């Protein structure tokens, strides 16, 4: 058993290709999970100073601190509120748009589709500034609707492209078969088309939700000082940097919903669903 730990033996046992893959994987894991582990550790460290590897005192002190601060708790609530509303409204607008792109051939369909790319192609800050000008005019600065619009603009491309390709992967004949056995167009959509497109839609919804949860730039700019979501509050903490532990606690709070959603949607999330979203036809 321990003989296998000898790298040379291992190399010859699994072959050159496998060995390199293994090394790559090991580096990968270290790279990804290293910081994650460090963060987890920090969140439960009552006291920690740099030269040490492990915290001097373990504990939940900083969790207590975060939940004791009114402003921090309110930022958590604000974040969730904004993310949920953004996701729901995005779904209401983007899923029908995605369906129309997938199913109907109309002039300007490609341009319509590309227009969603444009919001992600230009420098964000430029877009935010020009939007801010408009928002001042309409009194949207520093309001929830303003921030939600910004978040929606960010997620629109995913929210249209992924479901659209998911809808396209539903064969026409499968819809026609439903009509054939007696379902009307609306029932066909909800019983056949939508469930079959669910994987793509779930992934897109997930992106939208998580994207909204971590959006800081636009929220700061448009939300002024009124709307402080978690990432915005985090900026303050990091700049303050009296205790890295608060950042770690926040990061975990940010991860929990993502992890939860990924877990709930695990059935639908796969590399194909994500990759499939970027085919343009």
């Amino acid at each position: 058993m321990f003989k296998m730990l000898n790298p040379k033996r291992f190399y010859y046992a699994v072959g050159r290709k496998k060995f390199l893959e293994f090394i790559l994987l090991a580096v990968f894991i270290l790279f990804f999970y290293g910081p994650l582990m460090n963060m987890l550790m920090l969140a439960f460290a009552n006291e920690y100073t740099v030269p040490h590897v492990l915290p001097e005192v373990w504990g939940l002190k900083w969790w207590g601190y975060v939940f004791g601060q009114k402003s921090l708790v309110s930022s958590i609530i604000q974040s969730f509120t904004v993310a949920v509303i953004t996701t729901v409204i995005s779904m209401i607008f983007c899923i029908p748009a995605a369906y129309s792109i997938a199913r109907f051939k109309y002039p300007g369909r490609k341009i319509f589709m590309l227009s969603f790319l444009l919001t992600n192609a230009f420098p964000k800050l430029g877009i935010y500034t020009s939007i801010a000008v408009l928002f001042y005019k309409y009194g949207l600065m520093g309001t929830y609707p303003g921030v939600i619009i910004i978040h929606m603009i960010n997620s629109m491309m995913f929210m249209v492209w992924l479901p659209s390709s998911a809808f396209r992967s539903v064969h026409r004949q499968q819809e026609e078969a439903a009509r054939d056995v007696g379902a009307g167009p609306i029932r066909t959509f909800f019983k056949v088309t939508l469930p079959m497109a669910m994987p793509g839609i779930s992934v897109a919804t997930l992106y939208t939700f998580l994207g909204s949860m971590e959006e800081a730039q636009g929220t700061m700019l448009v939300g002024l000082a009124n709307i402080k979501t978690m990432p915005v509050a985090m900026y303050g903490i990091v700049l303050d940097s009296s205790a890295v532990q608060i950042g770690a606690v926040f990061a975990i709070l940010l991860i929990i919903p993502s992890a939860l959603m990924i877990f709930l949607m695990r059935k639908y999330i796969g590399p194909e669903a994500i990759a499939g979203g970027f085919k343009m036809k």
Partner: protein
Amino acid sequence: MSDRKIKLQIKDMTKKYDNGDGVAHINLDVYEGEIVTFLGPSGCGKSTILRTLGGFLDVTEGDITIDGKSIIALPPEKRPTAMVFQSYNLWPHMTIYENLAFGLKLRKIPKSTYDPDIKKMLELVHMSGSEKKYPGQLSGGQQQRIAIARSLLLKPSLLLLDEPFSALDAKIRQEMREELKKIQNDLGITVIFVTHDQEEAMALSHRIVVMNKGKFDQVGTPEEIYDDPQTLHVASFIGEMNFIDADGKTIAVRPEDLTVVKGTDKADLNATVRTSMLMGHYVSLTAQYGENIIKCFVDRDVAEDLEVGDAISLAIGKHTIFKDGVRSKA
């Protein structure tokens, strides 16, 4: 024949796509309990006609009636037809049972009524025990059986099948064909079947409609189509056929209707043996006649004393003569 009830009537129906393709001036009566096959090369408009029957395409002109009532204004869900497509019939997110029950539930049939029907239907298509499976867990042939079962459960007035077996391999196709014919016979339903496989059409149909470029070439029983092709296209599309050009006319004769005699000037045509191939109980022989290569089926004992290059005479038995692509009366 005349006392039989007409199930489906297509009256001077035209369907043109935006690009000008489509079918024009289609007329057809289908009797109750009949299997009628649309047969023709790819792109000739078979699916177009079937889809207008199922309600997936609007007709440009003309009318379609089922049991005497026009159906062209009805959406697919209101038509008394059921369609089985070439593939992607089933809904992959539902179990087989759910797939079968979907249409029955929509009809508000209580489960206690349709449950035994589903069991019986699964037995009929030899798929008992697959209720809890998902379509992805079945083979192509099994999926098509379920699709047919789903259509039959709805007791359609007319069953439409658009190349339902074309994605299957030869052996399963044969089985499915026989099964379909049996089920049709047992239930007495009317079936419109689309295929581009002439063998399938011959084996399955009461009548065949041979199509070419959006039009009907010939409508008739398999025997009529085989023995009495009305156009050159029908003659070349169905079975094996030799075409011999002679003074502006074309003589069409099947390989089994030629008799081979050794020697010159013993029969209608003088030719030489080109190739000879043993096919089992008979020999497929090709003969060179001027520019033409003629295929004949001969008995083994006749073929045994023929060598490649030998002079032979061919006697033409049953044949048809075509002038300008259509059958000449002479």
